[in-house]
């Protein structure tokens, strides 16, 4: 146990020791990527602690004192908490409904046989190749004729649909991965279709459910285009949409502007920090199966 071969460090079978100078280019490239990714966000966060005068006189410098005055002003000028609440409601509802309802179909596609199954799946799979931005106007028309224009339910409905392709792929793959014997055992024990689905199959696909939910959550949380097209009033405005009003709302109050942007960005980063494994996983499933 105390003896470990020197080369087998960590889980790496590929790692090899090379002279320091040979590793410099790779190291520099990694450093550059980290800087490119972090600098814009750090700059905004740093600026949110500076005074207006500091922002204007020295844009790229650390704040001399950390004041939360910007955050107070931002919350005063713009009902960010209201938009935040709207975003939370829309995102939670659309994520839950999307994962719940699309999983039903994914199960049927993965585990049952019926005539026309492959044809129906290919038709639903069309949703993966249709560029939704091209359908802006008719989606607006459909939502309006359903009486859901400028309302939270209208956005929930569209966000559920936008995430349908990915959830369908992820959940079909997860259901397909459950051993058939478990399902058969349930039926032999006399369990019905519903019982088998909710009590046996669904609990066995927790990983898939988490991946699908995280992606649906992030996509709905970040969506801008349809929020812009489908809503008008401030009462139903989402957080990403509210960002487009920041510049005029915070005219010349740059501290508050940067504080507002920081508040809008943080939730996504926190969610990602917690669920980054699921995010990468569902990206890969979506790419490989898509």
């Amino acid at each position, binding site marked *: 146990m105390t003896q470990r071969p020197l080369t087998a460090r960590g889980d790496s079978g590929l790692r090899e020791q090379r002279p320091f100078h040979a590793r410099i280019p790779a190291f520099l490239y990694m450093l550059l990527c980290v800087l490119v990714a972090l600098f814009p966000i750090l700059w905004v966060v740093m600026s949110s602690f500076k005074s207006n005068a500091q922002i204007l006189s020295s844009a790229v410098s650390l704040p001399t004192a950390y004041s939360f005055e910007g955050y107070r002003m931002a919350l005063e000028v713009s009902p960010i908490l209201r938009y935040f609440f709207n975003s939370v409601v829309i995102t939670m509802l659309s994520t839950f409904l999307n994962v719940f309802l699309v999983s039903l179909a994914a199960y049927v596609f993965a585990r049952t046989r019926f005539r026309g199954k492959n044809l129906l799946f290919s038709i639903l799979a069309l949703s993966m190749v249709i560029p939704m931005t091209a359908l802006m106007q008719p989606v607006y028309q459909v939502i309006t004729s359903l009486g859901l224009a400028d309302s939270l339910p209208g956005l929930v409905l569209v966000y559920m649909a936008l995430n349908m392709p990915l959830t369908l792929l992820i959940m079909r793959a997860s259901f397909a991965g459950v051993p058939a014997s478990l399902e058969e055992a349930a039926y032999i024990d006399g369990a019905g279709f519903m019982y088998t689905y909710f009590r046996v199959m669904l609990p066995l696909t927790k990983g898939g459910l988490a991946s699908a939910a995280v992606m649906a959550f992030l996509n709905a949380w970040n969506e801008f285009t349809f929020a812009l097209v489908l809503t008008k009033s401030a009462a139903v405005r989402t957080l990403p949409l509210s960002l487009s009003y920041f510049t005029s709302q915070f005219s010349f109050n740059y501290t508050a502007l940067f504080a507002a942007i920081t508040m809008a960005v943080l939730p996504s980063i926190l969610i990602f920090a917690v669920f980054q494994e699921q*995010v990468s996983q569902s990206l890969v499933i979506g790419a490989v199966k898509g």
Partner: protein
Amino acid sequence: MQRRQAGWIALFLLPAVALFLTIYAIPLGITLYTSLFDYRLFPNRMVYVGLANFAQLFARDAQFHRALVNNLVWILLHTTLHIAIGAVLALILYKKPRGWKAVRVIYMIPSIISNAAVAMIFANIYNPSYGVINSLLKSVGLAGMQRNWLYDPATSFVSVTMIWTLFSGYNTTLILSQALSLDSSVLEAARVDGASRLQQDFLIVMPLVKHMLATTMIMAATYMLQMFDLIYLTTRGGPGVTTTNLPLMLYKTAMTENNYGYANAIGVVIIALGVLFMTLINKLLRTRED
């Protein structure tokens, strides 16, 4: 059992099918159909015009020509330069240098925060009075090179392009996941045969992840084909039409001019381009082994 299940199967499929019809199929039908009409709201009219909308777009509409060219250039850059930036990082990270996991996660951050937030951040980075770029130029004595990066017609296109080109985290994650799943004995053999590091990367690893590369290219092409929020929130397609693309023109035509038939003709062009790119990239890079 089959017969007893039929009802459940139908019930389980119903929500997904209904969602597909409402948000995908019906809007797609409306787009295709109304693209053949002179269909507007003010004054309210709907007259069949055959392919006149398309004739107008391709033969006479200078704004469309510019939007199309911009869109195609952006797609070309996004499927090449943007992916190359991410692929190089993946080629470095799959050898698991120290800190590779952290670099992968950090580089993903700009890709998971909302585009609305990214747009606002870059609007500030490019800001002429307190933005990062002008401040840095001034501090190194190049104040003469300062300009209004987003609103100067000479720099607007490049400035907007830079907002999305450097953030290639999705591609890194996808290509890396594929590279990590490769059989390490292949690389071992190459190393024994005396292949240099670069030879291993480009002659062995790259061909083996070709399939994933094709997938990222399709994703990049369809993403850029539909790019809306990052442009809308920074330049609104201006100054003039220098940063307009097809979705932006569609939005303006539909939502501000209420010229629905013409807007949906642009939608049809977007859908056709999407299909075209998918087939083209598949033909070029995907082999039919699976």
